[in-house]
C-alpha cells in the first residue's frame, strides 16, 4: 500500500538567495515570519541567571573571584554576559579583550557570517580561506574585502549560516565544527563522518547551534579554530586531550601555572544530560514552534527558554509554568551554590601557592599544587562558562564541581605541605602578570554596570 512521504511544495520565492547572500533582510522577503522573529534577538529581558540586559553586565564585577581565577589572561580584563545573536559582531568589536590584547581573525568564525570571506581568501576553497583568515590579525580579518573593495564581513550569523539557500534544509557551514565532529565520530569508531550527509534531521537541530556553542582553542602557531574532541567530549576527555598535547591557554598571573580556559561548552554539557539522551535538541527549547495564523514556524528569536516556557517546555511537560520555572530554578540555584563553593576553594588554592612561594618554595616544590590548580580551574571554568547554570545537565554539573572542589582543596594542601609553616592569610590583590591594571585601562565602551 501507499505510504506517501509528504514533502512540502516549494516556497514562493520573490528574490533569489545564494551562498553569498549574508544579508538576512534579503531572505526576509521570502520568509518574512522567520525573519521577523530573527530580528527580535535585539530584545533584552533578564531571567534569574540568564537572559540579557540593555547593557551587558560585567561579570568580573559581579563575581570578583574571576579576576583571581583568570589572573594574567585577557578574560580578566573584560568578560560580560552574552546577549542576543544580533549583537555577536558588535560585542566582539567592543570587548576590551580585542582592544587590549592582540587577537587573530579566528575569532570571526563564530561571530559573523563569514563564509564568503573564507571562500574569497581561499579562491573558492573554504578550508584554505579558513586557514588564512584565522591566522590574520583580527582588525585586518574583520575588514577583509573582495576584488571590488567591498567588505566581505558585514553581518552576524545569518540565514545562510544554517540553511541551504536552494532547499532551506538545515546545514552546518563552520569548518571547525565539521572537522571537530568528524574527529569525535572517528574516536567513536565512525569513519569518514560528513555531518551534512550523515546526521539525522533531529541531530541537525542541535548541530546547527553546536557550530559555535562549544569549547574551542586556537591551535598554537596557525591560530586555527579547533574543537578539542579527539578523545571525547566529556570534561575529563577534553582535559586528557589538552594534557596529551601539553597545551595551555595561558600562564597564570599569580601561580605561574599553565592553565586551560573553557568557553561556552553548551553542546558538550548538554550531551551529558537527560534531555540529550531523550533526543531533545537545542532548537526544541530555544527555537520552539509558534503559531502564526494557520501556519506554524520555528521561532527564530533565539533566547532563554525561561522567557517562553509555554512553548519551550509545556509541549513536552504537561505541568504549570510556575512549576517548570521552579524546577529550572531549583537546578540552577544548586549549581550556583556549588560554583560559589568551588570558587572559594580555588581562590584558597591560588592564595596558598602564592604564599608558599613567598616562604621560598621553588617551582619544583609547587609542581603538584599547580597541577591540581589546573584541574580545579578547568572544571570550575567549564561549568561557569557554560551558560545554562547547570540546567543542561544538572547531575553532571554538580559532579564536575565536586571534582573541582576536591582538586582545589588538594592543591591547597599540597602547597601547605611544601611550606609547612603556612597559615591561611588573605592574599594581597594578585599581582596580575601581563594585563593592564584596571585604572590604566581605557574606559569601557559600556557605562559602568550597577
Amino acid at each position, binding site marked *: *500500500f*501507499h*505510504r*506517501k*512521504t*509528504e*514533502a*512540502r*511544495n516549494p*516556497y514562493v520565492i520573490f528574490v533569489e538567495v545564494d551562498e553569498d547572500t549574508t544579508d538576512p533582510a534579503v531572505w526576509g522577503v521570502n520568509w518574512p515570519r522567520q525573519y521577523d522573529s530573527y530580528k527580535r534577538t535585539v530584545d533584552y529581558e533578564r531571567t534569574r541567571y540568564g537572559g540579557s540586559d540593555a547593557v551587558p553586565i560585567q561579570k568580573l564585577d559581579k563575581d570578583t573571584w574571576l579576576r583571581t581565577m583568570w589572573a594574567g589572561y585577557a578574560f580578566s580584563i573584560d568578560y560580560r554576559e552574552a546577549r542576543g545573536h544580533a549583537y555577536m559582531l558588535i560585542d566582539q568589536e567592543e570587548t576590551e579583550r580585542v582592544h587590549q590584547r592582540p587577537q587573530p581573525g579566528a575569532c570571526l568564525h563564530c561571530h559573523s557570517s563569514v563564509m564568503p570571506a573564507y571562500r574569497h581568501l581561499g579562491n573558492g576553497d573554504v578550508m584554505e580561506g579558513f586557514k588564512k583568515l584565522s591566522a590574520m590579525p583580527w582588525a585586518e580579518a574583520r575588514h577583509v574585502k573582495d576584488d571590488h573593495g567591498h567588505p566581505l564581513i558585514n553581518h552576524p550569523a545569518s540565514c545562510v549560516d544554517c540553511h541551504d539557500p536552494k*532547499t*532551506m*534544509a538545515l546545514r552546518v557551514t563552520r569548518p571547525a565544527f565539521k572537522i571537530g565532529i568528524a574527529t569525535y565520530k572517528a574516536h*567513536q569508531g565512525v569513519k569518514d563522518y560528513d555531518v551534512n550527509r550523515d*546526521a*539525522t*534531521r*533531529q*541531530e541537525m*537541530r*542541535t*548541530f546547527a547551534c553546536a557550530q559555535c556553542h562549544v569549547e574551542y582553542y586556537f591551535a598554537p602557531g596557525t591560530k586555527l579554530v579547533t574543537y578539542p574532541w579527539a578523545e571525547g*567530549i566529556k570534561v575529563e576527555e577534553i582535559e586528557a586531550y589538552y594534557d596529551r598535547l601539553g597545551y595551555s591557554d595561558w600562564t597564570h598571573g599569580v601561580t605561574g601555572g599553565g592553565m586551560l580556559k573553557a568557553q561556552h561548552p553548551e553542546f558538550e554539557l*548538554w*550531551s*551529558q544530560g537527560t534531555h*540529550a*539522551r*531523550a*533526543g531533545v535538541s537545542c532548537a*526544541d527549547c530555544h527555537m520552539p*514552534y509558534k*503559531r502564526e495564523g*494557520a*501556519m*506554524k*514556524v*520555528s521561532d527564530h528569536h533565539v533566547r532563554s527558554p525561561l522567557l517562553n516556557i509555554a512553548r519551550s517546555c509545556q*509541549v*513536552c511537560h*504537561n505541568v504549570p509554568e510556575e512549576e517548570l520555572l521552579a524546577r529550572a530554578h531549583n537546578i540552577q540555584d544548586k549549581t550556583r551554590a556549588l560554583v560559589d563553593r568551588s570558587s572559594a576553594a580555588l581562590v584558597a588554592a591560588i592564595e596558598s601557592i602564592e604564599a608558599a612561594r613567598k616562604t621560598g618554595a621553588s617551582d619544583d616544590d609547587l609542581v603538584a599544587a599547580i597541577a591540581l590548580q589546573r584541574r580545579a580551574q578547568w572544571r570550575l571554568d567549564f561549568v561557569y562558562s557554560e551558560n545554562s547554570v547547570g540546567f543542561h545537565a544538572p547531575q553532571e554539573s554538580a559532579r564536575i564541581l565536586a571534582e573541582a572542589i576536591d582538586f582545589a582543596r588538594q592543591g591547597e594542601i599540597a602547597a601547605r605541605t611544601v611550606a609547612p609553616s603556612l597559615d591561611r592569610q588573605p592574599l594581597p590583590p594578585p599581582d596580575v602578570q601581563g594585563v593592564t591594571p584596571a585604572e590604566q585601562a581605557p574606559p569601557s565602551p559600556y557605562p559602568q554596570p550597577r
Partner: protein
Amino acid sequence: MDPVKPPDEDPPPAPVRPAFFGIGALALAVTILAGMFAGMSAFTFSYGEGISYFSTDPAACANCHVMQGHFDSWVKSSHHTVATCVDCHLPHDFTGKYIAKADNGFFHSWAFTFQNFHEPIRIKPRNERIVQLNCVSCHTDMVHELLPATVRGESVSCIHCHAQVGHAEWRRR
C-alpha cells in the same frame, strides 16, 4: 552512549515501494485472514469482536480490556472530538487501511490469545510511521513549512513533542 542519537533508532520512512510491498502484504493478509478464521485465534477474534477492526467506532477497540486504558486516555485527549482510533492508527488511503486492519487485527488477536505481548504495549515502528503520516495528513497546512524539502527528507517526529494529543497524560518519549 552516543549523546546525539536520534530519538528513534528506526530508519526514516522508507521511500515508497508500492508494487512489491503492496502485493507482499496483500498476500500475507490473505493467508493470515484464512488462518485466522480457521484457527484458534478465531475464538478471540470473535470474543474480542475482532470484527471491530473493520469498524471506526472507538468503543469497538476497547472490546479488548488491554485497550481500555488507551481508550480512556483518548476520551480525555484533545482529539477525541476530532479523530477516532482509526483516523490516527490506520492509513488514510483505502487499500492501506484494510491491509493494516488485517495485519493488526491478526497480531492483536494472536497476542491477546496467548497473552505473550510486551506490557506496557509499545507502538511498533511501522505503526508509528502510520500515525506520523496521519498527523501530517490532517495538519498539512499548519506544518507545511516544517515538512522536508525533498521526498527523501525526514520529517520532524510530531510525537517527539505532541506525545499526548491522542492519549492524554500519556507516557512521554
